[in-house]
């Protein structure tokens, strides 16, 4: 269940982001992009639950996991205080992960910290010989993490910021559409994370441009292993009386076909 991992590095990025590198060979060997771990990196009585984190990079050869996270509460603040050599507890890999096509082009659309799980997808896809197009947005430039890493694994990285500094703050879905129509690039699969609006924006494009869109969801979790049913989202489910059901983000997701999620 919970296994111990050793902290290799605590890297402070610009703005509120950190990267935590943990050595945990078994999880690194098993994990697929899109999967996540439950982490406990604090000893505080007032924090009852572990926290879910997507995997930013998975390095099986080194036995390492990279976690990109934003300091937003007491748990992540504690996490940012851990230093190399210290131990953390983790369960994983959890969730279904992203199914990559065998061949062809994929596009990744991420907003803010939503870029985190997309990196693992980009790296894996690149290593399998797929062509990756990455589109990232945030309020301002320094809130887009991992641009350099994404550039390494993508044929093209397109940024957009709300303040207009990058691409006049245009929508990532519009920029993706331009790639498809103006540059004639055919996209087979799209993964998106970090914005409900982005995921919804992809829906009408799916049939128009003939790609499959998947969304990576985030939700507050208690157990992370499907037991508590706390972390659900509403998903279209034929065969049920209502036509939809609550699916567990941790167990049935976190990757869902975008068209099946009911927002």
């Amino acid at each position, binding site marked *: *269940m*919970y296994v111990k991992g050793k902290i290799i590095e605590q890297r402070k990025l610009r703005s509120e982001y950190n990267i935590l590198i943990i050595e945990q060979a078994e999880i690194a060997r098993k994990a697929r992009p899109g999967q996540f771990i439950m982490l*406990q990196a604090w000893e505080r*009585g*007032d*924090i*009852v*639950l*572990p926290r879910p984190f997507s995997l930013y990079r998975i390095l099986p050869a080194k036995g390492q996991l990279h976690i990109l996270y934003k300091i937003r509460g007491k748990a992540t603040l504690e996490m940012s205080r851990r230093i190399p050599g210290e131990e953390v507890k983790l*369960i994983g890999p959890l969730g279904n992960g992203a199914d990559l096509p065998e061949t062809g082009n994929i596009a990744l659309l991420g907003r803010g910290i939503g870029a985190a799980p997309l990196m693992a997808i980009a790296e894996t896809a690149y290593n399998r010989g797929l062509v990756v197009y990455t589109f990232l947005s945030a309020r301002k430039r320094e809130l887009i993490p991992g641009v350099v890493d994404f550039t390494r694994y993508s044929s093209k990285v397109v940024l957009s910021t709300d303040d207009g500094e990058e691409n006049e703050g245009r929508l990532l879905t519009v920029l993706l559409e331009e790639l498809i129509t103006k540059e004639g690039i055919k996209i087979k699969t799209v993964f998106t994370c970090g914005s409900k609006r982005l995921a919804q924006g992809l829906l009408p494009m799916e049939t128009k441009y003939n790609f499959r869109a998947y969304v990576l969801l985030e*939700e*507050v*979790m*208690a*157990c*992370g*292993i*499907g*037991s*508590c*049913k*706390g*972390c*659900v*989202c*509403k998903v279209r489910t034929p065969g*049920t*009386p*209502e036509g*939809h*059901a*609550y699916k567990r983000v941790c167990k049935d997701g976190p990757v869902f076909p975008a068209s099946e999620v009911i927002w």
Partner: protein
Amino acid sequence: MKDLDLTSELVPGLKLKNPVMPASGTYDYGDGANAFNPSLLGAIVTKSVSAFPRSGNAPPRIHETPCGILNAVGIPSEGVEAFRRNTLPGLKQYNTALIVSVAGETPEDFAQVISCLEEENGIGAYELNFSCPNLGDGIPFGTNPELLYLAVKQIRKVASRPLIVKLSPNVVDIKLMARQAQDAGADILTVANTLTGMAIDVRRRQPVLGNIFGGLSGPAIKPVALRMVWEVAGAVDIPVIGVGGITDTTDALEFIMAGARAIQVGTANFANPKVMLEIIEGIESYMEENGFTRLADIVGLARR
């Protein structure tokens, strides 16, 4: 170590190998994700089964509070038929007592589920979840003494197996509720369910939970649950199962010393899936170090 007797006979025919079991809805069996073999538990308690499939509440469903969590999961259930077909066979394989938690909005719902389950073998007892605060404005028979009595009486008629009534803590006098349940034919009481609570996101100025309010569990409520176990154990003759914020052996012993013949672990499973096993071992060590050979010798010790 060999001479330790951890068994707890709740009622004739329902003898637990040890006093530790999960609280309904907080532990998953069968997916191969178990931290240890569930056969080691004193009992297995299922998620609440309702008459028909239920999808549960709108998310967000979970929110962490100081030393606690609020949940408004809303008892999602596959429904009793699917439960019999898909889930029950797997649970029967374990070599320990099987307690099926039953939920519903009316006494008829409970009776219907139990009638279906009566045809099955291998079930040790039913636990009636009268007290989930997340089921909207259903008839509050978990908090009204007369309605509680009538509901248990009605359900008793269709149940041949021991009935465990899980009491709500959101009452003035839990002793009264306990006596009503006992008089109506309950064999065992589980004390207590979650307290009702709420949290607001001050940035968005909205309730945090999709359901607005939810059930508070975890170490935060342990003192309240323990007080109720203490009160109920002194008010009825039937056995009490203690639950509420138990996270380690010390907590478990507090409940047992207050008079609980068995305990359930809920929220702590989320933080440490092995915690129930650790508590079983912890109780063994405590008995050994303090010269107790039978669990029964610790039950109610703080009352003497």
